[in-house]
């Protein structure tokens, strides 16, 4: 008998794979750097009813190829169906559904926070704990740059909201696979 197939396939033993994974997914797409590619991807998401949590677009080592990093909630969306639909777009070259423990992911965020004299020291302390940088200072506010995983940026955001968040800009995550030993 051939390797990999059982001798007998009983119908009662067959199971369909589960559509929902229940966790956050980071999809890393390489796409041809051509006009309209982002519109095709955005259009696909809106017409199929998929919600993107974050989206980051940028160049790669190859000038003809761009990378699009998407995060999606696998508790709401069948990720398998999302990736298969994305694959149908002719300009999408490759899709990686990043394995959490095999992935380095980072997001950058800028926060402008109310910082009166009496709370300034405490905010700066928070920033230090999160290894964040103060990048701009005025009489009433501080602007802080934070880099890290989405969870870390979320945590910083929660902390800083209590102090009066004036404005926030987040990039959405970008990700890259961890190098394997010997690579």
């Amino acid at each position: 008998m051939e390797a990999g197939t059982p001798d007998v396939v009983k119908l009662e033993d067959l199971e369909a794979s589960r559509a929902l994974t229940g966790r956050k997914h980071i999809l890393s797409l390489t796409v041809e750097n051509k006009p309209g590619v982002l519109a095709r991807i955005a259009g696909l998401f809106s017409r199929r009813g998929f919600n993107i949590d974050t989206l980051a677009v940028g160049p790669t080592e190859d000038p003809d190829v761009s990378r699009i990093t998407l995060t999606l909630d696998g508790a709401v969306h069948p990720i398998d169906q999302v990736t298969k639909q994305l694959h149908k777009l002719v300009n999408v070259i490759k899709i990686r559904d990043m394995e959490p423990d095999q992935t380095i992911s980072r997001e950058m965020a800028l926060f402008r926070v109310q910082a009166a004299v009496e709370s300034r020291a405490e905010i700066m302390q928070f920033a230090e704990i999160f290894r964040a940088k103060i990048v701009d200072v005025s009489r009433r506010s501080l602007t802080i740059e934070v880099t890290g995983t989405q969870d870390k940026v979320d945590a910083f955001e929660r902390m800083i909201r209590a102090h009066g968040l004036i404005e926030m800009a987040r990039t959405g995550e970008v990700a890259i696979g961890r190098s394997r030993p010997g690579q």
Partner: protein
Amino acid sequence: MRAADALCEALKGEGVEHVFGIPGGANLPTYDALYDAELIHIQARHEQGAGHAAEGYAKASGRVGVAFATSGPGATNLVTAIADAMMDSVPTVFITGQVRTELIGTDGFQEADVTGITLPIVKHSFLVTDPRQIPEYIHEAFHIASTGRPGPVLVDVPQDLSRADIEYEPAEGPPDLPGYKPPTEGNIKQIRIAAKALANARRPVIYAGGGVINAGASQELIDFVASDKLPVTLTVMGLGAFPAPHDQWLGMLGMHGTRTANYAMDNADLILAVGARFDDRITGKLSEFAPRAKFVHIDIDPAEISKNVPAHIPIVGDARDVLPKLTREYRALKADGSRLDDWWRQIRAWQDEHPLGYEDSTDSEIKPQFMIEAMYEATEGEAIITSDVGQHQMWAAQYYHFSRPRQWINSGGLGTMGFGLPAAIGAKVARPDDAVVCLAGDGSLVMVCQELATAAVHEIPVKVFLMNNGYMGMVRQWQELFWEGRYSAVEMGPSPDWVKLAEAFGWTGLRCDDKRELKDSMRAALDSDGPVLLDVHVSKTENCYPMIPAGAAARDMVG
């Protein structure tokens, strides 16, 4: 060479012989090039007609259908045909003119962002930004349209770029498209698992769709189901993929399918789907669809697998590759065919209890089902039949026993009224030696009746058998059954006089309202040299049964 001439050369390089279309300002250079090119152009009377004709051409022949339109309204008029081709996976290339490059984005005269408008309804599209791209994009467009799961590809060509001078070299070999690698071969391990599951199934159903026809895998399907006495049902798009007069044939399934086919799906323990996509017209209420079944799903489009119904054994691949392998693997198992005996006893009981049927009139009145039976006899079951959308389409699906692929050309996914006449024109151009009959609805035909001129002027001898009940019949049926008989805007009234209209367009117009004369009228129409419209007056308020009410389960069929 002028880019527009290169475009025509590139089309010829792809084997194109016929193009359907209408000229306008922005595609004037292309039409100027057409003046000398050895391409046969069929001048439609509305771009939607050109688009559906290209679809009919493609569906009848399996070759890529091509339609031209100018910018703005010309291009937007194509939209319905493009959407239709997307839903039914029809290999088509649509070439639109665009305003001059410097006008793009300025709301110029006859400007419309057609690549933007059609983004959700194309397999792919190209906006030409450099005239040298034109031959390359044409080559890529044909490759994409015709390989993998087929579909429509749009090429939008700004007017100034099609006038530019370029060097033309014929394209050779498959284009380099790093993001486009359609699967072909099915995974042999999965195929073996499917064969073994089937060998253990006691109540299997083979459920096949239009993908089998697109794959050219009808014979492979016939061979496969002959491995054992496997029961077969087809979707409305699949009709003809398996010969309807066949011992293992359960009839069409779905909303207006046979009770036998739907009950078999409802009771099956294994459903093997091939080239079909579990559309809502098939499943009815999804949560109650085939509750006892495990699913093998064979499709060339991986995204169709587990989209609506989770597959237990997914097989991505071309049906023409997968079915012979599955046949081989299954036969090698030497499964005991007698395990299906009880299942067949049950199927035969359903067939005996619920045959398709209708109450015929006792006078001269023509029942619509009778009309289809007469059409079947008058054409000896051999004609290519195109249809519009509605009751007549479903009756044709039920009562015209399609025996070969590409014999039945209809709009299954988008459900486009008015599809039939232009599709018949395209089919007749592709298959001039076949009789081509458009079975039209009166609500549908009036939407595209300008295409009567196309057939007359180009001497394309299609026949239109108009099932005239004076209503948009399917909508009337729904208003009767589900909207308390509140008939809102469904009556067609006495206009037009179809015989006079046909004659005005240069057709022969005939009328029949007596069932004793119907077959002779049909034969007269078929024997006549030119295009003929036969206006058949049928019962006005006959309903199409059986039926799964929308949102109900298959076992709850009515009528």
